[in-house]
């Protein structure tokens, strides 16, 4: 058991080092503020919730694996350190990373807000060491 815990901790640290070395950078995760209970204006789309941008670092933005088709928005891959995600999950009070990413409005990369399409994680001994987010660029940015 101790070996397993040690291995998962080492994997998290190794992933952090690799992300920092492989062009590690920071992006912002845009989170909507909690809805107002019984506020019909929000349910009718006439009241806009507030947003909070929180930093995600280190991450690697995989432009090399972008899938681009004519007239379609580009898709990108973002590798995120599990230690950064765990810190956010704890500080923002979410129950799990999956809930955090499901609730997120998008990821702000160099001023472009991208939608989170899917999230997967790589684990060792049941503990995630890196998260892989598939991002979609805005349709307005399609060529």
């Amino acid at each position, binding site marked *: 058991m101790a070996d397993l815990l040690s291995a998962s901790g080492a994997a998290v640290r190794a992933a952090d080092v690799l992300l920092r070395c492989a062009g590690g950078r920071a992006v912002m995760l845009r989170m909507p503020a*909690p*809805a107002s209970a*019984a506020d019909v204006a929000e*349910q009718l*789309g006439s009241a806009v919730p507030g947003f909070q941008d929180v930093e995600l670092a280190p991450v690697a933005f995989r432009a090399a694996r972008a899938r681009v088709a004519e007239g379609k928005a580009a898709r990108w891959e973002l590798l995120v350190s599990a230690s950064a995600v765990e810190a956010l999950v704890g500080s923002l009070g979410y129950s799990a990373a999956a809930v955090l990413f499901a609730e*997120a*409005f998008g990821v702000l990369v160099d001023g472009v807000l991208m939608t989170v399409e899917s999230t997967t994680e790589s684990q060792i001994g049941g503990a995630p060491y890196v998260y892989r987010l598939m991002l979609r660029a805005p349709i307005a940015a399609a060529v």
Partner: protein
Amino acid sequence: MQNAKDTFYVTLRDRLAAVNPARTMVLRGVTRPGVLVEENELASAYQPVDAFCLRWTGSRLDMRGVLPLIAMDCEIRYGSDGNAGNGGMDRGRLLAAMDAELVAAVGAAPQSAAKMNYTGAAPVALGTRVFWGDVAFGAATVNGERLERVATVEVFCYQEAGEL
């Protein structure tokens, strides 16, 4: 048209909550009745399971009357994975329960409501009513472990003078 869409949503939400108060969902940290209008939520919001998701599709205008009559199509999407404790084997029953709740809410008399304007601080009643037909159920479709259905309701309203 927007006032009619808002009125239909609020009426349906209240009726569904009365039929089954336990059907709720959590959206952005708040528990609310299990019904939403897709175009009124964040584009990133996922479709909740065991809840009703309204999508406004087609609309038609009839100018032959004293006031323009607008007919709008409202798709109501819902699905169920069943209970995990039952291995999902009750997903058909849960979908049937949602069918029954929808019939009870949409088919309850009167199938109309006073058209309201919700843009101000307090809702204001307008001069005409919003009315709707019965539910038309689409075929249930299997999407992995999820059983889904799209039901359609035709909603009618008069376009009043000065109304956007």
